């Protein structure tokens, strides 16, 4: 298993879009280091011939027919929007 020392909190926080304070970073790095250390023991389990379980019960082909149903009104869709204009959600200018 990977060593917890490889845990780069800045990189992970950036991926997760979380602005952490230096205190939080130090604290989380230490706490999660402990958790990851605990998790190390999973490496001992022989899983060489084991299928991964993505679901508790494997069921296939769960779908619906292509029949449209009513959705939300614009007002309901935007009722929780922090900022809106012209029935659209406003965000800071997106520059790629």
């Amino acid at each position: 298993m990977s060593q917890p020392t490889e845990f780069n909190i800045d990189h992970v926080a950036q991926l997760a879009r979380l602005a952490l304070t230096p205190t939080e970073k130090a604290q989380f790095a230490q706490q999660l280091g402990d958790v990851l250390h605990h998790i190390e023991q999973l490496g001992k389990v022989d899983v060489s011939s084991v299928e991964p379980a993505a679901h508790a019960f494997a069921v296939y082909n769960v779908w619906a027919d292509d029949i449209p149903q009513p959705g939300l009104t614009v007002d309901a869709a935007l009722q929780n929007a922090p900022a809106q204009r012209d029935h659209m959600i406003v965000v800071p200018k997106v520059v790629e």
Partner: protein
Amino acid sequence: MIGLEVHVQIKTCSKVFTRVATGYGEPPNTLTDPVVLGLPGALPVMNKAALDASIKAGLLLGCEIAPVCKWDRKNYFYPDSPKNYQISQYDQPICLGGSVEIELPGAARNLMGEHRQVALTRIHLEEDVGKLNHGATDSLIDFNRAGTPLMEIVSEPVMHSAEEAFAYLTSLRATMIYGGISDCDMEKGQLRCDANISIRPVGQTTLGTKVELKNLNSISYVSAGIAHEIKRQIGVLERGGTIVQETRDFDGTTGTSQSLRSKEMAHDYRYFPDPDLMPVKIDASWQDRLRADCPELPFPKQRRFLERYQIPFTLASVLIWDRGLADYFEETARLCGKPQMAGNWIVNDLLRELGASGQTLAQSKVRPSHLAALVQLVDSGAVLTNAAKEIFIAMFASGETPGAIAERSGLKAAPADTGELEQWCRDAITASPKALAEFKAGKDSAINAFKGPVMKAAKGKANPKLVDETLRRLLAQM
């Protein structure tokens, strides 16, 4: 080398993971529900029709259909992505392999160019994102498009030129339209293309650095963008520079491209199986049901038209791109028994009138039976070509049968009075002893020299077939 990633919106009534309606051009945020908006607690449910369409696309392109495929989450933050993950397929896509047959431009317009198979890597199904409208100081999001079923069709990096890429897209687009999978209207974003381009200088065996070109949102931009990028990369190398792995945005209006973000900051999408969705098992009977619904594709159709109807490439190459037009042609040819004439009328006259009037083929009042009747009138000599053109235009406007129009407007070939015709023919033969001698000597085409004067005498209304017969009868007696 060029590889294309093409996103094709599937034509379904409802979205891929929820049942709110799909649509284009609706007022902003009127096609949403809790699932589309990624509200707390919302869960996805697959749309069977989107699966059917993807499998059908795979069958049409000769892909291997996965016996089992599953759904993965592609995690990245972007404001057009409501959940900040896109439900997509990572390591078990619905279709693998396959190819798109392309036709390269021929040496001349009337010559068929080389055909080639462009190998596909995979096709996977995913959900479309919303649309960002960029303002001066902020951006506005409309989620109407979010959740529309989207196929990502990925080619191998095997194309060599902008022409090949153009031919690939043309063929792929026609295939999707033929299969009823998508309308592929690029203006509406139903087909979107990104290109991966790397150049390999002559004599070098390894591929150069790959540059991704985005926003090639019309077929002509694809050609222009790729040509521009190839030129740009050659330029960089010639100046002794190196190609940077990056994503560039092509601006079709200026014909230039601009670097977006360097790929060193490569995304870490953290793909993992979506626990909210169950995998899909595709058995042979499901495939068979869809296969039965697969149409003949443009190029096989072109080969059949050339062989069976013996029509020239110039006609076949026009008829095949539109499934409705090709069917129209076949029906007309069947009814009149004159494929080439039918093809000419369709390609020259019908398409011209449709274009001028802005009608679609389906809207046209000229049905195959009408056109077949007209072809037969011309073929039998009952109507002359010039008159037939007038009849066609009248028929296009009114939807009447050509026979009725010819009758009403006196456009039928004259004269029924063979006595008069016989006299004109005798006069013409007498007036040209030289042609008479040549004909007697065995030069059959010399007969044409008499036809002009006969037509002139008949003021253009003589039935050419009858003129020919009469002349031959008289000549045989001389």
